[in-house]
């Protein structure tokens, strides 16, 4: 080891706390990068493999009922459809012994004999159908796990209004249900919603669908795959005689859409977060290097005088940057891998893959390493550059005093006189070391951004649940019928035990058009006097459903470019399906889905019906016994496709989303802490070193170490707090950008900033600065005052 390296090592040892602080910032930046890109790769690679394995469909067509022979003939005319399958698809209620919760499921037919089909399943436990029984079922694995249903047990489903006993042969997963959502849900709830695969022959029998199907799923050849709309339109036309409810390209397939949007969201995050950390790290490192090389001005001069070349001296300084970058990179890559492991396991709870595991991605780690090194070297080179340029003779002369004169503020004599001497010291130092102050502000702003984003995301979900389930949807039970029902069905329900009140609902899925803009969504018909569904505006004010025309969700109105008072064309998939025009009377806010409301009677006549309903909302009695009885009745009610309990939805959202989110928020708080801590520690220690004679003089004058510490604390606090205050609006903007990136038609995240968030952020910022100051205080205690007074730098 050369003598200069030995010098370097001793300097590392002397400044290790500061180096650790900087290394942590870099490491966190690299870790966040490695983590996000690993998670991104984990999910998107697994998705691709899984989709290929199951032969994931590129489209589906929902039909009322069509003979298989006819479907085959039609599809034959579309050579772009490389492979397809006609299946039977229904919703059903599930009746498990000893389970009082309302359980629902999707029922799908599969060939009696195992073969590689479109939207195939991956068996987890048990086997495929056997030849032994007709009434065999393969259950969605997560549902089976929750209810402890093993192959070999019997379960009951209400199929086509009849309670059927089914023998479980196996449990399985499928690529079309990676993110399995029940009707109206936004998060998977495997406890209350499952998928049930039946033998095709058995499904034909129970649904009276001999030689027929109500859903076609298929795969497309590559060029059409990406732009399937024209083809799907043609298919729709050709099959229309069999009552096409709609065609769905893969990009609109619910599970796929959530999954794809999540992957895009991760990509967005991975573009923003690491940048924040690494830019702060480069700045802090730059400040440290500038200070370090300034301090070593004379040594640079001596080394050059002894015959060291600029390159050799420069290399000597760059080694520090290199070391920081290298250690930061390695620690970051390892930490990133561990974090990716953890975050991937969280994703595995929501997104069901046969196997979603974390893999090491050397390329991501190398890029992270590279970024770390580049950022450290840039910070180091930029900091060292000034001193290196000096001729040795110049370098050995004492540094010309920095602009030591009065700061701008001092010209405002009146104001200046208001400050005590220690405030003046603080202000002078803040304004004289402009670059350092700016870097401190920047770091505090970035730390604040991260805190605000984390807190806002958390508050947003709480707010969303509150808005959606306490203000808008106030029903306790939501019923969906299999087909349209006459109004009598509502009166029956009102007479069920434990029902306090019930309101009819008519859901009509339709295509909205406004000039060039169109969107497939639905209209919810509710009674104008509804007390169980209360549309609201953003501020939470109630909005009345107009007696004619639509109360449209803001997002849909935006998509369609229509303003209140404007007209849209509507093509319903129910009733007579005639295209009609109607007015958008007002705009409502909601966070789940694109709910558009209309008056129940108006919507009925709009689709050419009278007093039909597709569902009902209920408020129930407070007696638990009565409610249990009601739930039992509801499960057996003929014609019911699904029944959901509002409390189950709230519980599910709270347990899954909020709890996992909290973990991520603690992580973010920790990361922000690293930024605040590192930046404050670095600049305070430099400040202390630079002003050591001043501090020493104070000690000689009789100040205690804590009093001297206060002078430095006040300075770092001023910078830190100003940065935090400036960072709050910036964090708000960042959150808005993130919510935009994450928001979808299915799930809009409200942007919420509350006093509590601001206060929490300020408190944390103060806390981290204080924590850093403890180390500064330690240095003050340990400082050798005599030496500080004696030594010239």
């Amino acid at each position, binding site marked *: 080891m050369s003598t200069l390296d*030995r010098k370097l090592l001793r300097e590392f040892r002397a400044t290790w706390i500061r180096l650790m602080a900087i290394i942590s910032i870099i490491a966190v930046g690299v870790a966040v990068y490695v983590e996000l890109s690993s998670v991104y790769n984990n999910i998107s690679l697994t998705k691709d493999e899984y989709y290929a394995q199951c032969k994931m469909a590129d489209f589906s067509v929902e039909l009322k009922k069509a003979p298989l022979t006819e479907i085959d003939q039609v599809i034959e005319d579309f050579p772009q459809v490389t492979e397809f399958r006609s299946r039977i698809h229904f919703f059903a209620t599930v009746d498990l012994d000893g389970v009082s919760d309302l359980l629902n499921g999707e029922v799908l037919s599969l060939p009696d004999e195992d073969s590689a089909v479109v939207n195939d399943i991956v068996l987890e436990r048990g086997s495929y159908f056997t030849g032994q029984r007709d009434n065999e079922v393969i259950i969605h694995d997560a549902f089976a796990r929750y209810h402890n249903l093993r192959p070999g047990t019997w379960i009951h489903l209400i199929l086509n209004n009849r309670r059927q006993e089914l023998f479980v042969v196996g449990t399985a997963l499928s690529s079309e249900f990676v993110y399995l959502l029940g009707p109206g849900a936004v998060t998977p709830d495997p406890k209350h919603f499952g998928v049930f695969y039946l033998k095709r022959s058995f499904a034909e029998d129970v649904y009276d669908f001999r030689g027929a199907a109500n859903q076609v799923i298929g795969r497309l050849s590559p060029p059409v795959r990406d732009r399937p709309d024209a083809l799907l339109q043609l298919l729709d036309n050709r099959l229309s005689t069999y009552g096409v409810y709609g065609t769905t390209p893969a990009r609109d397939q619910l599970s796929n859409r959530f999954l794809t949007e999540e992957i895009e969201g991760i990509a967005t995050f991975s573009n923003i977060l690491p940048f924040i950390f690494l830019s702060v790290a480069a700045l802090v490192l730059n400040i440290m290097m500038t200070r370090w090389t300034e301090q070593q001005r004379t*040594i640079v001069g001596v*080394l050059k005088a*002894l*015959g*060291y070349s600029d390159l050799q001296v420069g290399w000597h300084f760059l080694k520090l940057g290199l070391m920081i970058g290298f250690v930061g990179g390695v620690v970051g890559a390892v930490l990133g891998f561990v974090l990716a492991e953890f975050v991937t396991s969280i994703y595995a709870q929501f997104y069901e893959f046969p196997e979603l595991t974390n893999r090491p991605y050397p390329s991501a780690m190398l890029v992270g390493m590279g970024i770390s090194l580049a950022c450290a070297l840039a910070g180091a080179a930029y900091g060292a550059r000034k001193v290196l340029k000096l*001729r040795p003779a110049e370098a050995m002369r004492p540094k010309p005093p920095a602009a030591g004169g009065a700061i701008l503020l001092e010209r405002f004599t009146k104001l200046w006189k208001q400050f005590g001497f220690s405030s003046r010291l603080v202000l002078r130092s803040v304004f004289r070391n402009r670059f350092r102050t700016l870097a401190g502000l920047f770091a505090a702003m970035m730390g604040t951004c991260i805190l605000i984003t984390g807190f806002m995301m958390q508050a947003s979900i709480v707010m969303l649940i509150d808005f959606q389930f306490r203000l808008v949807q106030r029903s306790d039970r939501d019923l969906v019928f299999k087909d349209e029902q006459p109004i009598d069905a509502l009166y029956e329900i009102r007479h069920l035990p434990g029902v306090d009140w019930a309101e009819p609902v008519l859901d009509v899925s339709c295509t909205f058009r406004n000039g060039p803009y169109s969107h497939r969504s639905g209209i919810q018909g509710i009674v104008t006097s509804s007390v169980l569904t209360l549309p609201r505006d953003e501020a939470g004010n109630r909005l009345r459903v107009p007696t004619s025309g639509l109360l449209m969700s803001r997002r849909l109105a935006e998509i369609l470019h229509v303003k209140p008072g404007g007209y849209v064309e509507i093509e319903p998939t129910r009733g007579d399906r005639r295209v009609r025009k109607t007015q958008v009377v007002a705009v409502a806010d909601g966070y789940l889905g694109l709910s558009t409301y209309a008056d129940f009677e108006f919507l009925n006549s709009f689709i050419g019906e009278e007093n039909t309903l597709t569902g009902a909302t209920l408020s129930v009695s407070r007696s638990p016994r009565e409610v249990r009885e009601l739930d039992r009745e509801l499960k057996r009610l003929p014609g019911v496709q699904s029944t959901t309990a509002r409390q189950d939805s709230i519980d599910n959202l709270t347990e899954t989303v909020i709890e996992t989110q909290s973990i991520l928020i603690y992580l973010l708080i920790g990361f922000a802490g690293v930024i605040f801590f590192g930046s404050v520690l670095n600049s305070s220690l430099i400040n202390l070193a630079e002003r050591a004679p001043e501090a020493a003089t104070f000690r000689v004058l009789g100040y205690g170490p804590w009093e001297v510490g206060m002078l430095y604390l006040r300075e770092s606090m001023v910078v830190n707090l100003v940065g935090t205050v400036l960072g709050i609006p910036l964090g708000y903007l960042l959150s808005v950008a993130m919510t935009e990136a994450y928001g979808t038609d299915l799930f809009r995240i409200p942007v919420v900033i509350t006093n509590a968030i601001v206060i929490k952020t300020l408190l944390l910022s103060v806390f981290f600065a204080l924590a850093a100051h403890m180390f500064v205080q330690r240095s003050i205690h340990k400082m050798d005052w005599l*030496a500080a007074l004696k030594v010239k730098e």
Partner: protein
Amino acid sequence: MTTPEERDSTSLPTATRKEVLLQLSGVGRTYQMGEVSVEVLRDVTLDIYRRELLVLVGPSGSGKTTLLNIIGGLDRATNGSVLFEREDLSTMNGRALTKYRRQIVGFVFQFYNLVPNLTARENVMVATEISREPMDVADALALVGLEHRIEHFPSQMSGGEQQRVSIARALAKNPDLLLCDEPTGALDFDTGKRVLELLSRTARELNKTVIIITHNTAIGELADRVIRLRSGEVVEVKENAHPKSAEEIVW
């Protein structure tokens, strides 16, 4: 100790066949300080010979350090030329200048300039590690009487001891041209004497060129030539036909 006879035998040839090491002609140095320019060296024309001991005297601020820096390649002249082996130091590229500093020059700084977190030995090693034919580090420190201080850090040494480490560092490079900016400034009489003796022996016995800056006119008696600077100009060049030995001088 050298006897007068021995000294004569080495100094006589120097006087007779003078071999030029450096040729300064019209050297000037001007500092630009904002609007005003300060001329701290003006028209210095001087030949520096191999194997000579040169003493540079003059009042504080007269430009001694500036001139030494230019000779040592630490600074560049703004006027005139400094020829070393037919090449001009003032227009040489940085690389050549670094090579010149590394291979030809040894510098003893006015303010010692040791690296604070390196020991005495390591401070010398910093120089020897990049030299072609360095002296043994321990020998160099022994020459200045610091063999018992080898593992001490600068902060653990007195000013005079630090100055001697600085001298050892310059000597250890085994340079052709040894430049010393007030090498005895911080030393007591006896130690100063020993150092001077060492420096003159370096010139006489090891055939090096040694330039010493001093405020102490008595030291001039050691030199082959004494150059006097005032306000940036050479005002006197005094040749000593019979330089004294360090033993003989008193101050």
